[in-house]
């Protein structure tokens, strides 16, 4: 009951954020965005035809009316049809979001799990050679551009100049084996890049916890190192870890892996959105931006509830 009340209050408090995000993006992407009038018209259009298309696209209505229409669409989750392909926006998202999730989730999970393990090991052997090599690796990971990693891994694993064991690009998934084949290279690249930043972040969180008095006491009482790291350190370091993980979820679901998708030619939501911006496909843009904002509010709510789950001292007030 308490959680429910809290959630409702939090959702109401999230409304200004949703309004802000939708307004800024509406202004940028729709109002100042590309004008589709002449793409939809034939040659030598008459003024009546131009006016009709502009009316169809809603360009002739005043700004605030169009923005209000958008908010109504967001509330009813009905964004109409894509201007470019004529496909229903909900069907388009329903088709592409699962692809992005399948593509990104393995890398996201591995990137965080491996990073937490590496961070625990590094923190446990703090300032020894194990720590120094892990942190050295992490600085290297932070310094290489994602794009460079993607290209290098593609050459190494997919091209005839390297091992040539995975498909170069595309998305032709019919079975589990196909799936593993197609996500292998993107996942390795994602994990490689994620490890750099994540390991460093998690290590600093864990080291800070390790220097606390309660850890020293536990150590003095002879708690074995593995148990100490899990029970006394990791559990207490959960709050920043949860924050980092949950807040990356909205960006993953919606903007997806834009770079990976456009590089490997995978039909995910990131690529669809990017194409929508460049062509001015407003219904798609409105849906994606609106949903991202809503997901951010939900992520905030989720972190607060999770804080409560890992730390009973946190009150939902």
């Amino acid at each position: 009951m308490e959680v429910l009340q809290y959630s409702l209050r939090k959702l109401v408090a999230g409304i200004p954020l949703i309004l802000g995000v939708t307004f800024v993006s509406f202004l940028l992407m729709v109002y100042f965005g590309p004008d589709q009038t002449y793409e939809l018209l034939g040659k030598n259009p008459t003024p009546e035809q131009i006016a009709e298309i502009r009316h169809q696209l809603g360009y002739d209505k005043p700004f605030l009316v169009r923005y209000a229409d958008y908010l109504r669409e967001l509330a009813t989750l009905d964004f109409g049809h894509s201007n470019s392909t004529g496909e229903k926006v909900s069907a388009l998202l329903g088709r592409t979001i699962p692809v992005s999730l399948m593509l990104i989730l393995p890398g996201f999970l591995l990137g965080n799990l491996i990073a937490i393990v590496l961070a625990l090991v590094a923190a446990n052997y703090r300032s020894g050679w194990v720590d120094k090599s892990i942190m050295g690796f992490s600085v290297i990971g932070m310094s290489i551009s994602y794009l460079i990693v993607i290209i290098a891994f593609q050459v190494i694993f997919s091209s005839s100049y390297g091992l040539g064991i995975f498909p170069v690009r595309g998305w032709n998934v019919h079975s589990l084996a196909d799936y593993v084949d197609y996500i292998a290279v993107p996942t390795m690249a994602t994990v490689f890049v994620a490890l750099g930043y994540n390991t460093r972040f998690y290590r600093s969180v864990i080291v800070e916890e390790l220097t606390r008095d309660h850890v020293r006491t536990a150590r003095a009482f002879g708690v074995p190192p593995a148990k100490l790291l899990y029970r006394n350190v990791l559990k207490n370091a959960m709050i920043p870890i949860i924050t980092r993980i949950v807040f990356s979820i909205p960006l993953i679901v919606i903007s997806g892996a834009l770079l990976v998708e456009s590089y490997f030619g995978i039909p995910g939501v990131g690529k669809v959105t990017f194409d929508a911006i460049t062509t001015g496909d407003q219904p798609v843009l409105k849906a994606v931006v609106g949903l991202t904002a809503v997901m951010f509010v939900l992520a905030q709510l989720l972190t607060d509830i999770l804080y409560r789950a890992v730390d009973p001292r946190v009150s939902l007030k």
Partner: protein
Amino acid sequence: MSATTGSTAAPMAGTAQPAAGERRRQTLWSKAAWKFRRDRAGMVGLAVVLAYFVAALGVWTGVWATGWADVAGGKWEPVSAEHWFGTNLIGQDIFQRSVYSIKTAFEVGLVVAVLSTLLGAMLGAMAGFFSGRISDELILWLMGVLDSIPFYLLVAAIAFALEGNPYAMHVAMISTFWITTGRLVRGEVIKLKNLEFVEAAHAIGVSEYVIILRHIIPNTFHILLVQSTITFVAAIKSEVILSFLGLGVKDGMSWGLMISESTFEVLAGFFNNFLAASVLMFGLVMAFNMFSDALQDALDPRKVS
């Protein structure tokens, strides 16, 4: 803890007082500089960054890499004395292009780092100083809003809204990169504004904006310094991805453009373009990261490493 400035520095509680007359008077800045100089990785990083900066100055003053756009050879020539890194698809010298790109990287990095740090310092200090009031709420709301728009979509949208203006990329980066700095400064200012020196300034009737500008912001300088190095690196790395997506550098040459040029070359077995841009970029970013780490260690007394 804040770093106090200049000759007015008072010893902070908890720092060891040097015995009178034995050592010169120490400020927190001189202690930080001493600590930084002993950090070997940081000094190496700084030296490499300075070397890159000299290379960029050379390009800027027209001493070298002037022929980056000239067609000087055949298609995909291998490494030779004339073309140190070979030539690209249309016969341009890859070495000159990659050196010219150093200048582009510094331009993007410096513009974005300086402006987003300034913006973050101003808005962060305002929010922190007036915390709990309406201006704070507004600035926090703005941060939340800009944080919730996916970065690449925001850049693409700004690029279109500015109708292909070459600075669209800079504007987009600045409008998101100031947020982290702003949040950090806000947190620090909330601590600072309850200290005695601010109370004293209030008591003798200094106006609020003068307090913010002359007494509060200088005390967040250590945060700004570290954040600007982090932003610099982020800007260079974003430029590469944005240029690949066609949203980045419009005129001139950059590592991002070279790498996107190379994406089909590597599948045809020609790696010079890709390697030249990636290795030079990796060197600069790595050196800057090492420099930035050492700076953090030297300036943040609470940091446990």
